[in-house]
């Protein structure tokens, strides 16, 4: 009998491998937008809809602007990093500034159904596919 180890590390390894496998996949190859600009985006499929997960630590929620059209999503905002006065710096690695990125997707979206959530430095965009874009089952009569 094989015992299954309920090791959370296994789940993470598998997740890391599946993310690695889709790194800069050609899913967006035919689009005008490219990979690379800030902020980094991961796109997942959730049922028949899409979910974009964007790492944006330390952003003021009110500075985020999200616009959606039929197949593009625009994410703009400003990241600020401030230091108190009179401190001496040991290490400065965090980056800050303004960003404005458009992601165009190879599917049609339902702009009214898009939801955005910002928590723990992660921006999650729920991107529902438009009804007419969804696959239909065709019955053979």
């Amino acid at each position: 009998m094989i015992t299954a180890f309920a090791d959370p590390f296994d789940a993470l390894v598998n997740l890391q491998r599946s993310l690695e496998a889709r790194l800069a996949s050609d899913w967006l190859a035919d689009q005008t937008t490219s990979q690379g600009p800030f902020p980094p985006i991961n796109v997942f499929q959730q049922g028949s809809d899409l979910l974009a997960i964007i790492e944006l630590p330390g952003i003021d929620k009110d500075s985020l602007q999200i616009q959606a059209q039929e197949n593009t999503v625009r994410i703009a905002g400003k990241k600020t990093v401030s230091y108190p006065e009179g401190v001496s710096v040991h290490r400065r690695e965090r980056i800050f500034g303004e960003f404005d990125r458009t992601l165009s997707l190879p599917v049609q979206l339902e702009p009214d159904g898009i939801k955005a959530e910002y928590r723990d430095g992660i921006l999650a965009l729920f991107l529902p596919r438009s009804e007419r874009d969804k696959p239909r089952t065709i019955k053979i009569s």
Partner: protein
Amino acid sequence: MDAKQELQVQQKRELDKKEEGTIPVRAFLPTADIYESQDALKVVLEMPGVEKGNVDVRVEDGVLNVEGRLDLTKYQGLQPLYTEYNIGHYSRSFRLSNKINQDKIGAELKEGVLSLTLPKVEEAKPRTIQVN
């Protein structure tokens, strides 16, 4: 040209482990800012995706260890289509240049940014040295 400088993506740096684990899991270094004021050392670390209860901060033998664990349940049932970054737990250590009052370490996690305040002990506070 546009005067506004475009923000570049910072590639995640992977943690170099001293020993290898039996499972090839990857961990990442949180981006850090460290600055020093008159009475404390401030360490600011970016750990997007880490929730409040999943942070571990320790000071041992003058080394600050910070760990942040991700909650993977959020990724259940998701099929990656296109990715630009990998995810993993965060871990980083710093050898501290000052003596720290360990009982008074302050930690605050907000929007994926962990701010640590490490108060210096009295003897470690700077003295002005007079040049004769």
